[in-house]
């Protein structure tokens, strides 16, 4: 039995050994963010800081409502405000950005530190900070550009989907606090059903292109959006239209890693065998004398 009784691990970064696999019937959890209901109040940001005992430094205003202006090691979620002009209408698109908890996490695949990134059987992707070596590969591996490396301890941080709350049967802090029910939390199945109701409602209000953002390129996500313009997700502060893990991650981890390891092992074995069969390179007395004479000859 693993120490985590309720949330066993499905995947673990940089590990060849497989985690226990029998307990796989855990309910898949998901957070549904209904962008059409969000009023941009940032209660989720405040609740996130409070629950996770984070203290973001006092920032600055850059002329927009985005505050802080980007995700940081201490701000794991941030509202991104976009003004979109559709014909004569001005639409204020407010997207709560943060970790999407991909079912096929690029960060986990790119991570070289054993056990620094884990995926639990309920779908939550979490960083285990004590195993993190701060290399930043997760940032490159993430299709959504979410993890941030702390300048204080050189470790990567991002939203945990409040795994400590979910593991005792509570909703994440941001989902609980949301005063407009723009953030919902539950089983992934229920969230998809809930999203369908919302999308039907939006369509009846003239948003014919509304839909659910649950990109298949990363195996679906455990944080999903209801978008009024699901045909163009990039409207929402650059949400990727078709997120995929960079092919470099597959190339590096799938092809280059075993080849490089084989090359290193070959070099080691070859060197060792060469050493015990041929021995070290020794300079004979004759060579030494010749070199001495040559040096003196040049000097004179």
């Amino acid at each position, binding site marked *: 039995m*693993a*120490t*985590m009784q309720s949330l066993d691990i499905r995947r*673990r970064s940089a590990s060849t050994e497989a985690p226990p696999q029998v307990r796989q019937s855990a309910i898949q959890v998901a957070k549904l963010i209904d962008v059409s209901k969000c009023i941009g109040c940032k*209660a989720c940001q*405040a609740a996130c800081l409070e629950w996770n005992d984070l203290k973001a430094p006092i920032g600055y205003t850059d002329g927009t409502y985005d505050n802080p202006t980007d995700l940081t090691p201490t701000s794991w979620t941030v509202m991104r405000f976009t003004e979109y002009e559709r014909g004569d209408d001005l639409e204020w698109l407010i997207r709560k950005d943060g970790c999407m908890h991909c079912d096929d996490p690029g960060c986990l695949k790119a991570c070289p530190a054993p*056990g620094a990134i884990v995926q639990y059987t309920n779908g939550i992707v979490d960083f285990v900070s004590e195993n993190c070596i701060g290399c930043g590969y997760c940032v490159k591996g993430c299709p959504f550009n979410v993890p941030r490396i702390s300048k204080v301890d050189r470790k990567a941080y991002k939203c945990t989907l409040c795994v*400590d709350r979910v593991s*005792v049967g509570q909703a994440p802090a941001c989902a609980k*606090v949301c005063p407009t029910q723009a953030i919902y939390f539950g089983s992934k199945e229920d969230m998809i059903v809930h999203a369908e109701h919302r999308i039907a409602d939006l369509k009846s209000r003239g948003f014919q292109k509304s839909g659910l953002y649950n990109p298949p390129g990363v195996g679906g996500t455990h944080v999903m959006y209801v978008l009024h313009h699901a045909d163009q997700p990039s409207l929402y502060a650059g949400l990727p239209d078709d997120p995929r893990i960079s092919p470099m991650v597959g190339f590096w981890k799938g092809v280059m890693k075993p080849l490089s390891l084989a090359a290193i092992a070959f070099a080691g074995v070859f060197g060792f065998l060469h050493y015990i069969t041929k021995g070290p390179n020794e300079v004979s007395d004759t060579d030494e004398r010749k070199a001495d004479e040559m040096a003196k000859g040049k000097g004179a």
Partner: protein
Amino acid sequence: MAVTRRQFMKVSAAGLAASSVGALGFTGAGEALAAGVRPFKLERATETRNACPYCAVACGVLIYTMGDRSKNARSEIIHIEGDPDHPVNRGTLCPRGAAALDFVRSPNRLKYPMVRKPGSDKFERISWDVAMDRVAKLVKEDRDKNFIAKNRDGVTVNRWLTTGFFGTSSQSNEAGYLTYKLVRATGLLGLEDQARI
């Protein structure tokens, strides 16, 4: 390739050393698979229901304190979140309410009665007893001086217009009722508090 006895021994010794290092756990093979999730921090915290101190909506909050209220344990607020059983907000909060812990811990929060005496340029801390006596005395003085029992036409009005009362938004229905009764019983008309809403 001819291998001498000495070479064979060297290779064997190196192999043994390498596998021993592995068995000692240097390769990470023995590392536990389980990653400890951060323990739920409210497990045995004391939960107290209250109302958010900010606006007049008066959302229900749950205040979590460390310490089980035993004799020698000093309670300290560690977390505040919405009360799911409260009909007003059903667990949700606005950004201010969600950050109410910072309000509790703010160095600027007023924690005791302060008075700025006439002619003084700074507030001084006073005890609750002194504050209560002073307020009661001044209120009584003012009411005795300015209470209007009858208006010009001789109609009984029983009003007191020279003092106002500022209540609080974060009070229960019952406390609102008591505030209203107390203030109106004195004839005071300038009342602002939750009971008005």
